[in-house]
């Protein structure tokens, strides 16, 4: 479960950014996220939809305790992201489309590293690793250096790294960006299987196809503010435009 209550996050603008702005703001910072609230429930996929620079990544980084909010509170799996950050991190898996891997390690070493950081004991780790490697077909290249793997193989390793500690909350930040169709399909399957296992899933995207394919709940974010939040089915029913894309543009345009 993820509960977000009125969070706000501001970023200081650099001198270069200030110089490049047509209209100079009164204060040298920008609100990346402002007054955002939503709830993600276990066994459901929560989609955060927004154009580039809308505040999706900032929101997800706030959930993952990488950033601290200026205002508001976030509870992940029952723990506060500011005061109980470590407890939160123990319970989340985090995957982005631009996630890199340590090229000089093998998939086996990399997954072991994250399992150790999560404090998994040897037996529990072995079983989980064997299951994941078999499911994803990693066994045949488990001991090769990651630098020598194809992008599809690397993405499988990323999935194994994210899921090794069996997190109850999984955060996907634009997970299919830059991936080919086959590899993107692996991610889509992973997101669905997480939901089917009863995990809390939140993923951000700007691809309408993925929204229609995966969403149970939908929030549309634009310029740091939510312009819609609710079950996807009711969103579809209330749409004033013909297509999802048109409705998104209408919502963003009105905001």
């Amino acid at each position: 479960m993820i509960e977000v209550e009125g969070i706000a996050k501001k970023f200081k603008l650099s001198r270069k950014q200030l110089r490049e702005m047509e209209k100079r703001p009164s204060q040298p910072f920008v609100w990346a996220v402002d007054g955002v609230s939503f709830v993600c429930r276990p066994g459901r996929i929560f989609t955060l939809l927004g154009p580039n620079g809308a505040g999706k990544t900032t929101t997800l980084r706030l959930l993952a305790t990488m950033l601290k909010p200026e205002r508001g509170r976030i509870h992940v799996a029952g723990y506060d992201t500011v005061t109980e950050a470590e407890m939160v991190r123990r319970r989340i898996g985090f995957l982005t489309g631009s996630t890199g891997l340590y090229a000089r390690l093998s998939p086996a070493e990399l997954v072991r590293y994250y399992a150790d950081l999560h404090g998994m004991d040897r037996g529990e780790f072995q079983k989980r690793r064997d299951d994941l490697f078999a499911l994803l077909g990693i066994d045949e290249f488990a001991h090769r250096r990651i630098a020598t793997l194809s992008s599809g193989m690397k993405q499988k390793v990323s999935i194994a790294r994210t899921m090794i500690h069996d997190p109850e909350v999984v955060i996907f930040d634009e997970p299919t960006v830059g991936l080919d169709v086959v590899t993107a399909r692996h991610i889509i399957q992973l997101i669905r299987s997480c939901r089917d296992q009863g995990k809390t899933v939140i993923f951000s995207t700007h691809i309408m196809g993925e929204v229609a394919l995966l969403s149970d709940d939908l929030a549309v974010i634009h310029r740091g503010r939510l312009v819609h939040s609710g079950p996807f089915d009711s969103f579809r029913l209330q749409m004033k435009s013909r297509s999802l894309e048109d409705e998104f543009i209408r919502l963003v345009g009105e905001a």
Partner: protein
Amino acid sequence: MKRAWIVFKKEWLDVLRDRRTILMMVVIPLLIFPALMNLAARLTISQRQKAETRPLRLALIRADAAPELMRLLQGHGDLKLDPRVTTAAEAGARLRAGTLDFVLIPDADFAERVAAKGSGGLVLMYKSSEEIRIAKKRITDVVAVFEKTLVDNRLKGLGLEPGVVQAVAVREQDVATVKQRLGEAIGGFLPYIFVIFCFIGAMYPAIDLAAGEKERGTIETLLASPAGRGEIVLGKFAVVTLTGLASAAVSMVGLYLSIKLSRDIPGALLDAVFRIIEWKTILLVFSLLLPLAACFAALLLAVSIFARTFKEAQSIMTPLNFLVIFPVFIGLFPGITLDPLTAAVPVLNVSLATREIIAGTAAPLLLAETYLSLFAVAALSLWFCSRQFNREEIIFR
């Protein structure tokens, strides 16, 4: 702390598999000294041998003004006299062109002044270079022999013994021990080597472990793991410190091997050097390196995490090299010694304390001040580095 150890183990494995780091940490420090010393020794020896043995091309203008000197020069088999040069202008041109090595020009009244028991003027022309500087002694030795014969004859004519002109005979006695002289000679040079290698050895891992992590996009997954920022910093800091130390140690091994394997250093001198450099000395010097490596590691990591990319980190760090070399360079100046003021200046204090440790003259209080200063700066640097890792605007810059 357990997670810091996990981060350390992973980063150390990663660093050991990085060819660039191994090159900077092991290969270059190990091979550079044997290679450079061998090359320098060979070049110096061949230059010296050439200057000391090859026949020198010499011209004596106005030879009739100094016939006895002419005869003496002609009697030297390793001097080739060129009779074709007759004017000073021509001699200058030949020297500049490199077809002559030396030209001697006695004053027109040389013979008269010598006969009248006065001083005969003699010009020695040459075009200076390292080889000519060594070869010049061969010419001045011949002239000195000529002058001594004249002076001895004059003293005999006066009924005096040659020793009468030497009223004072100085007998020098140096009370400095061999160890102290060695400390003076190599004590300033050693820190120059290990401080630089300590810095360079730590530089690449520091870039890879912070800026590299940002560039690869692995920083987010690490920050989303249960490891706290402090644990991540500590693990990375320990690896960078260790690589700096290892690089400095390997450079010393390289230096040791190049001295040990050198055929140009006399065996007796080598024995003396190895008798003087005791384990206690080596351990003391390395105990200075530990806090120094820690300072470098923390500062380099702080700079590295600030940079967006590997390249940006490299461009920020390169000028830092000069900041590190400068205090070591100051330590080489004559008259700069370890005192309460210099013992408080990081890097400079390591340079000066090393000299004192090797010479066996290090004052315990000043050494304590040196350690205190280094540990204080290392702790401050680590605090700064940790602060950088905790700043969102730096991590996600």
